[in-house]
């Protein structure tokens, strides 16, 4: 399924991808280039902006979204290549806590083991009067998932007044990392590499919709067959072992 | 021909002002004379097109510049009037040289060769040409503003107190230039001034304004020798204009001028014999005598006949005399008038010090 490495000049692909995938995708793109010699232009932005741009005829060959809703919308508008959509990665939500300067080494050895949040858990008490940092709970995927999770645990009502919402999940992480907020709900992929936070809790399975990153080829009637082929090939590559390894390294879960 | 102004305008606000000016200015120099706040600048602004009067009409040489009723309103830049503003209004970002050249860039035709240098030299601003206006003295700015207007080759000059900030010596250099413009180039001038000596020297027509109205207008010689007009123009400045012809130059530095009533000796002037002049004789510099006085240092003694007498409120009196075919004014005390029995018809000798006819009071006659 891989494109032949001997292709004289493989077409350049433009990929619109959710910004949270940057590190992993940069690595995968490197590998793809090594493998096929094909150039990739990766445009990272919020899923909403990218989806809208695709609606407006952006020159994207592939779209990797951070949530299903925007992909659904493109799908409904007939902007995706039939049958090309697939989930390429998954993620998990975690509750992070600020790790105090007392542990400059930043390794997680001394941290208490993360607890699994139980229904009715008193999150507010753990905030100690501070705020719970989350991404926008009705707009940004991480926030939407987080709200779902807290709702299903039956503690959203009680927690909501203490939530500080940010425009993206990284900003929520920053609030915890700087100690501004004692707790935050972020992706596991963001939490793990940040030395200033520790994972304080995980959510029970099924507490929120599965977090998936769908990818699809954009339907462009003007596209050359080579481009379409290359796009489909890259989609396959994304689901391939090399890409999976890279995603795992960044902490992403893999779709079944 | 000439400028014809007939406008009405009102400024609102506290202590508002309303202007109602109507006068005709034949070619030559028209002096706008009047106290501060009487509306002189307002009239000039209307002529220049910088102010659209509420009502009325302005025409120059038959061309309508402005007509509030319906007709054309010629844009200021199409009027081609060189305006010397009361405040210099030089362009602060341009050198003096560029300021002077500004008008010439837009004037049709080509400048007379050497004109620039001539004007610069007359105004004494040669060493300053590369300076910016910010680094000039008050009088230097004023001179530059005069130069800028002159060099724009205007078809009429509007000068709002152009010489107020200048010393006598400089005035004496600029006035002959303006005279030449008036006579040789035939450029009409609307000239605002408080200084009667300037006005008398230049003006062919005098328009006296009072509180927004034209109090008196007419040919200079007539208005200036008019007993009735004298108070309006300022008694201290009263004085008649005599036409004369240069007769001869004498070796001892005097020039002899023939006037209708005899001969006058004036300080040497450069005009060639035969040149026609206008000589202003200030009323207060004339001494009257019923007998011919002898042995005075005053060289000019003319025979005259009293035409009119106007006794003022103070101790003074103004006497109008016919000298030859012209009229002369003399300002004397009431006591002298009584002592000398001055009355219409009385024969009198008029003593005029030769030097009292100041250089700036001698103008070349027009036409």
């Amino acid at each position: 399924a891989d494109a032949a490495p001997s292709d004289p000049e493989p077409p350049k692909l433009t990929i619109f991808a959710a910004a949270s995938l940057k590190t992993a995708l940069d690595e995968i793109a490197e590998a793809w280039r090594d493998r096929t010699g094909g150039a990739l232009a990766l445009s990272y932005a919020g899923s909403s902006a990218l989806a809208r741009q695709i609606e407006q005829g952006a020159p994207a060959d592939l779209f990797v979204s951070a949530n299903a809703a925007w992909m659904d919308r493109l799908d409904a508008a007939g902007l995706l290549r039939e049958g090309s959509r697939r989930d390429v990665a998954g993620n998990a939500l975690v509750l992070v806590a600020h790790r105090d300067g007392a542990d400059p080494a930043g390794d997680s050895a001394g941290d208490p083991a993360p607890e699994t949040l139980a229904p009715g858990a008193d999150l507010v008490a753990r905030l100690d009067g501070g705020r719970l940092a989350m991404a926008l709970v009705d707009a940004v995927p991480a926030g939407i998932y987080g709200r779902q999770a807290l709702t299903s645990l039956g503690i959203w009502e009680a927690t909501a007044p203490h939530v500080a919402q940010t425009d993206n999940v990284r900003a929520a992480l920053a609030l915890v990392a700087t100690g501004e907020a004692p707790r935050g709900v972020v992706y596991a992929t963001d939490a793990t590499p940040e030395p200033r936070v520790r994972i304080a809790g995980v959510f029970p399975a099924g507490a929120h919709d599965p977090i998936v990153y769908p990818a699809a080829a954009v339907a462009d009637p003007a596209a050359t067959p080579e481009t379409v082929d290359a796009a489909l090939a890259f989609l396959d590559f994304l689901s391939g072992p090399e890409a999976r390894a890279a995603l795992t390294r960044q902490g992403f879960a893999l779709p079944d | 021909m000439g400028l014809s102004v007939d406008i009405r305008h009102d400024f609102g606000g506290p202590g508002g002002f309303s202007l109602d000016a109507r006068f005709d200015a034949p070619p030559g120099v028209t002096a706008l004379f009047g106290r501060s706040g009487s509306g002189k600048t307002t009239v000039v602004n209307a002529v220049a097109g910088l102010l659209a009067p509420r009502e009325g009409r302005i025409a120059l040489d038959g061309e309508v510049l402005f007509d509030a009723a319906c007709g054309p309103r010629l844009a200021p830049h199409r009027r081609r009037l060189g305006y010397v503003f009361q405040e210099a209004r030089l362009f602060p970002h341009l050198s003096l040289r560029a300021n002077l050249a500004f008008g010439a860039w837009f004037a049709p035709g080509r400048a007379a060769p050497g004109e620039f240098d001539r004007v610069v030299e007359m105004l004494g601003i040669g060493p300053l040409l590369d300076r910016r206006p910010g680094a000039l003295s008050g009088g230097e700015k004023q001179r530059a503003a005069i130069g800028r207007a002159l060099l724009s080759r205007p078809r009429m000059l509007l000068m709002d107190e152009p010489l107020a900030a200048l010393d006598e010596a400089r005035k004496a250099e600029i006035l002959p230039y303006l005279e030449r413009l008036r006579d040789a180039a035939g450029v009409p001038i609307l000239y605002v001034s408080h200084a009667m000596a300037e006005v008398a020297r230049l003006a062919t027509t005098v328009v006296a304004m009072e509180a927004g109205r034209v109090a008196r207008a007419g040919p200079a010689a007539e208005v200036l020798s008019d007993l009735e007009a004298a108070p309006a123009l300022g008694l201290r400045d009263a004085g008649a204009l005599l036409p004369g012809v240069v007769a001869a130059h004498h070796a001892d530095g005097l020039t002899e001028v023939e006037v209708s009533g005899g001969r006058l000796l004036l300080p040497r002037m450069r005009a060639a014999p035969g040149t026609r002049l206008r000589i202003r004789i200030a009323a207060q510099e004339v001494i009257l005598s019923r007998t011919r006085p002898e042995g005075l240092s005053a060289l000019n003694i003319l025979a005259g006949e009293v035409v009119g007498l106007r006794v003022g409120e103070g101790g003074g009196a103004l006497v109008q005399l016919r000298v030859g075919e012209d009229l002369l004014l003399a300002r004397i005390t009431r006591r002298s008038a009584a002592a000398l029995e001055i009355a219409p018809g009385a024969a009198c000798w008029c003593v005029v010090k030769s030097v009292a006819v100041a250089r700036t009071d001698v103008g070349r006659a027009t036409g």
Partner: protein
Amino acid sequence: MQDGGVWLDPATREALALSLKVALWSTLCALPPAVGVALLLARVRFPGRALLNGVVHLPLVLPPVATGYLLLMLFGRRGPVGGWLEETFGLVLAFRWTGAALAAAVMAFPLMVRAIRLAIEAVDPKLEAAAATLGAPRWAVFGLVTLPLILPGVLAGAVLGFARAMGEFGATITFVSSIPGETRTLPAAIYALLQSPGGEDAALVLVAISVAVSMAALLVSEALASRVARRIGAG
């Protein structure tokens, strides 16, 4: 990223070059219309004046994302203006650096207009009247008197606009995305780095570069402005 390594990183160099190109072009192209609009607003009373004034200020008031969204709707390939531009002039803005320049220009426009307008309102109309009496038609009065006198304001507007364009991000990324080499400016690169774990240090380097460039522009503009001011002098 190693010390000094940024200069060698082609992606960074690309982003910097692109940012400079976008900022310069947007400033240059926006300046003349900004002068025109400033003149209109400062000098002419016309019926749509308040509206124009409002529209000019819009990009300041709206969140950049909203501005970007509106731009996308209008100037996107399928937008009414974008489609027309492409058909008539073959000019494509969407997802091109030209689009980034447009976004930057739109965001910088109110700043430029304000600065220039303030300068215009400070010009003594008596000087312009004097120029007119000297025979200068309107365009000449503008070019020879008004424009030189408002030059400090125009410069201030240009530098504000340039700085704003260097920092513009929200509208740009929403309108033309962040395509490497085409629309990925420094701020977009910074954003992307901040989105990925561990990108902060690299982001800081980019921030430093961006700040350095803008400071340089600032210094140049100050030097120019003080020169102009000295020329105009105390009047």
